């Protein structure tokens, strides 16, 4: 009989390991806001009804169904359970906890009980949070903590093996910005499509609109400054919009459009009369590339850092990398641009190759 039970269990397990862990298990959410100033702070704690029903009797009429009236009837007991299971301290001194009237919330399709908390603390200083709710009963239980301070947002997770969290020392905004500046530079370096597009914008800088080779000097510098500034402003706008979730576009069409920017940029470089459209080209596709950077930034763990230094640092990193590319490529262009073969042969050849690469990427991403 024992063997049979195991057989049946394994039958259920068979070939489904990949999907079997698909459901994440028990999760509670604790959000704290300390921006009100002073030692006291407010919070919100959401716990799934199905979890709460596991640790305390909520089904008063024992009909196998849970109603809002039953929850209201048990609200004192619920408040007692939370007061017993959750504890806060600040500056190493315990805080008194007041629990308000409950709400309901939906999270990933499950009904949650949501309560407002008010912690009355004796001193300022780092906040410490501890929970003993559900950990003894459910090994998958996690409490996802979010603490919003005047300068940043901390995120943390409580688990059966780590049931307390203490607010770390305040990270400097400059340090965050510096860290993300490196990220910005790194993403330019590994983003070949961005590098190639930038190169396509630079190539005609040493060529006159009539196709002849331009002289060196102020005109080239001004032209490049306008182009690079337009590109920078454009992708800064969309990076900001996307990173702050004000605008959200799907990744695939953006990646296709970025590949398309290489095709169009490359083809435009074949026709000197079209050089005058490099400014709108740089601005237009700069907007598109900004969304691409936002997708890259989305894949970076910000560790709950505030958005401003993250965004500023990442953008500064991208710009520094752009300037580094310009500084590296420009002397080479100035030198090669002096030769008669540059404008009619070398530049079109390089542009054509870039356009072909862009076309291949476009097909791949479609």
């Amino acid at each position: 009989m024992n063997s049979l039970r195991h057989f049946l269990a394994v039958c259920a397990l068979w070939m489904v390991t990949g999907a079997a862990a698909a459901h994440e298990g028990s999760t509670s959410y604790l959000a704290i806001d300390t921006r009100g100033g002073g030692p006291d702070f407010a919070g919100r704690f959401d716990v799934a009804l199905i979890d709460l029903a596991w640790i305390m009797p909520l089904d008063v009429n024992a009909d196998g169904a849970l109603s809002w009236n039953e929850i209201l009837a048990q609200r004192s007991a619920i408040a007692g359970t939370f007061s017993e299971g959750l504890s806060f301290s600040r500056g190493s001194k315990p805080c008194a906890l007041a629990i308000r009237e409950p709400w309901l919330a939906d999270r990933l399709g499950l009904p949650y009980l949501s309560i407002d908390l008010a912690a009355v603390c004796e001193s300022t200083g780092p906040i410490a949070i501890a929970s003993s709710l559900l950990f003894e009963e459910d090994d998958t239980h996690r409490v996802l903590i979010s603490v919003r301070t005047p300068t940043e947002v901390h995120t943390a997770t409580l688990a059966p093996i780590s049931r307390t969290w203490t607010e770390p020392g305040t990270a400097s905004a400059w340090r965050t910005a510096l860290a993300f500046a490196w990220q910005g530079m790194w993403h330019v370096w590994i983003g070949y499509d961005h590098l190639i597009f930038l190169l396509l914008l630079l190539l005609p800088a040493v060529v006159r609109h009539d196709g002849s080779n331009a002289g060196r000097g102020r005109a080239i510098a001004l032209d490049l400054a306008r182009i690079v500034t337009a590109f920078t402003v454009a992708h800064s706008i969309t990076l900001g919009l996307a990173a702050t979730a004000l605008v959200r576009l799907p990744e695939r069409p953006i990646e296709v459009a970025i590949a398309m920017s290489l095709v169009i940029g490359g083809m435009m470089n074949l026709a000197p009369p079209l050089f005058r459209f490099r400014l709108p080209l740089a601005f237009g596709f700069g907007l598109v590339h900004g969304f691409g950077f936002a997708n890259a930034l989305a894949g970076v763990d910000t560790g709950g850092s505030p958005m401003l230094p993250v965004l500023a640092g990442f953008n500064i990193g991208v710009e520094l990398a752009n300037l580094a590319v310009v500084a590296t490529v420009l002397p080479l262009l100035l030198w090669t641009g002096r030769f008669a073969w540059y404008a009619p042969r070398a530049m079109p050849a390089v542009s054509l190759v870039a356009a072909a690469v862009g076309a291949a990427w476009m097909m791949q991403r479609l």
Partner: protein
Amino acid sequence: MRDSARVLRRATVAANAAAVAVFFSAGVHAEEGSRYRPTDGSKTLLLLPAALESKTATFFEEGSADSVARRAEEYTDLARRSSDARYFGRAQALITPWLNRPDLPPRLLVAAADLAQQRHEFIHSRQLLDRALAAEPRNAGARLMRANLGLLAGDFAAARADCLAVIQADALPGTICLASALTGPGSLERAHGLLAALDCSAPGAAAYSHWRVLTQADLALRAGDTDAAVQFLERARTLDPAHEETRVRLAAALLERGESARALALVDGPNVSAALLVARIRAASLIGDAVATAARREFDALLTIGLRRGTGTHFREEGELALYVDGNSVRALELARRNFAAQKDTPDLRLLVEAAIAAHDQAALAFAREWLASSGFEDRVALERLREAGA
């Protein structure tokens, strides 16, 4: 205090078996975590089936390894039936205090191995099973579980040895196990023959029907017969309509046949899981259905929560999304590689091959070709795709 807590817990254990969330009828609460207070307090928020308490209360005695193992098995089964991982956690919470004790009974070791396998801790799971089998070599459940680990690791010889040992205890599950573990040219036909020859009218055979039909579907897919695979999967769905993996595999097979609308209908609904959501996004994207956007949002939320919980590894699902929806073959290949390092089931191999082809990655193509050759795993579709790609 402890007794009273246990009484309270027991009184509500029933409340949690295969619980079904009933959305409050007052309206749509679309935004994640948005709050409300019901206007009608008598309406049901959550259904609490009462099956578990009556089954477990009669034998559960705290302090007995055997009763802890039995209760952990109950919760584990419940987690699988209800697709709710919190019951795995409840089983683990029962077992954890026992794990450092010496001379654990094999039954508790097997229950712990089952949970470790569920968490993708395959090496730990195998160690626990080895300990159980050292103490009780004829434990067929442990053998079968270890065979599954062998299959996931691509160690088909070890899996076959365990399956053959199971056959000696019970021919039916042992044979189904063996059908999945056969390798080499013609193994699909031999496996099919083994399954076709099973006596389905034997006592207890019905319990294995779903597993047998799922295995037949996998064999058909590997043979390139999608129509037969769909038929088997539809039968499996009839046998167990709630089985999530069956729905996901049937949806994938239907997508392969271009039946996106049917696939979408199959995986639509309120149940939130990574595999179902990805299947939904794939199907809805193909027919331009707005469901895709909502499902994508849910999937992103699930991943974010999984990452924050430290428990979320959905390489297969993320890889499928990157490959089939986002068209990001480079990311898809990276995810497919990480997924294949952990598990080597047919969908894992297919994802690796398709991502390698899309990314034009010769090293990955060569790796897949070499793995097929060295393991003997017969997947004619994957092999043909590799040939077409010149690998």
